[in-house]
């Protein structure tokens, strides 16, 4: 009965994760392919791009309709960096859901997956988020005359929250690895 519930929950989780994966793919492609459309602007605002634009440009629509290829490239790189940890995280969770579906719940593989997830989000908070900020500012200011181009990145409370949850994930993964080893020893205790 519990196994059936787990299988059903895993299938639902996999479906949601696949939808998220497709949504993320579209989130990167659509805004930079059609930056002036309503959907494009909306998807850019989700990626926090509007904050950078508000800082550097009075008229965002003007800027977006005259977007140069190099700025667009910086924007695409920034978007890819923004969604990359999520894509990797989804891929890991798809594997975990697959394991759950096959009845492998408290296994070393799953424990390591959770730990890896934590490490990825730690890297995201410490490195990738500032890096995507840099590319977004480059995208927003690269068309400016020399001397008015900017490279900027920030470290906010959001980063701190991400670091906090990443550390928790690493800890959970670590505890699961230790628990798995204890369970294995218990199995071989006669």
């Amino acid at each position, binding site marked *: 009965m519990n196994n059936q519930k787990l299988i059903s929950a895993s299938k639902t989780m996999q479906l949601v994760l696949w939808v998220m994966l497709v949504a993320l793919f579209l989130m990167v492609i659509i805004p930079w392919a059609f930056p002036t459309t309503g959907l494009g602007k909306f998807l850019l605002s989700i990626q926090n791009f509007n904050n950078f634009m508000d800082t550097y440009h009075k008229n965002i629509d003007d800027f977006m309709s005259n977007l140069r290829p190099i700025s667009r490239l910086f924007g695409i790189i920034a978007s890819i960096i923004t969604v990359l940890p999520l894509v990797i995280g989804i891929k890991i969770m798809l594997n975990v859901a697959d394991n759950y579906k096959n009845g492998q719940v408290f296994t070393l593989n799953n424990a390591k997956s959770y730990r890896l997830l934590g490490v990825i989000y730690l890297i995201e908070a410490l490195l990738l988020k500032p890096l995507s900020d840099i590319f977004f500012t480059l995208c927003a200011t690269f068309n400016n005359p020399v001397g008015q181009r900017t490279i900027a990145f920030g470290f906010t409370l959001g980063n701190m929250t991400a670091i906090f949850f990443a550390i928790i994930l690493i800890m959970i993964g670590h505890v699961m690895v230790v628990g798995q080893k204890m369970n*294995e*020893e218990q199995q*071989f*205790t*006669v």
Partner: protein
Amino acid sequence: MSIIIELDVMLARRKMKLQDLAQHVGITPANLSILKNGKAKAIRLETLNAICAVLECQPGDLLRFEPDK
């Protein structure tokens, strides 16, 4: 591992089968097989006590230390 389990030797000496010992000791033959094949990571004193009682031997007759090479 440096601790060698000599259960098979004692079983041969007592002319007893693994299944019979398992039945007397009250553990599954599969678990006893883990012990016999040296795959066990730990042995409960309770189990050792029961095995010694059935085979009428000392723990030293079942366990032997061999330094790692």
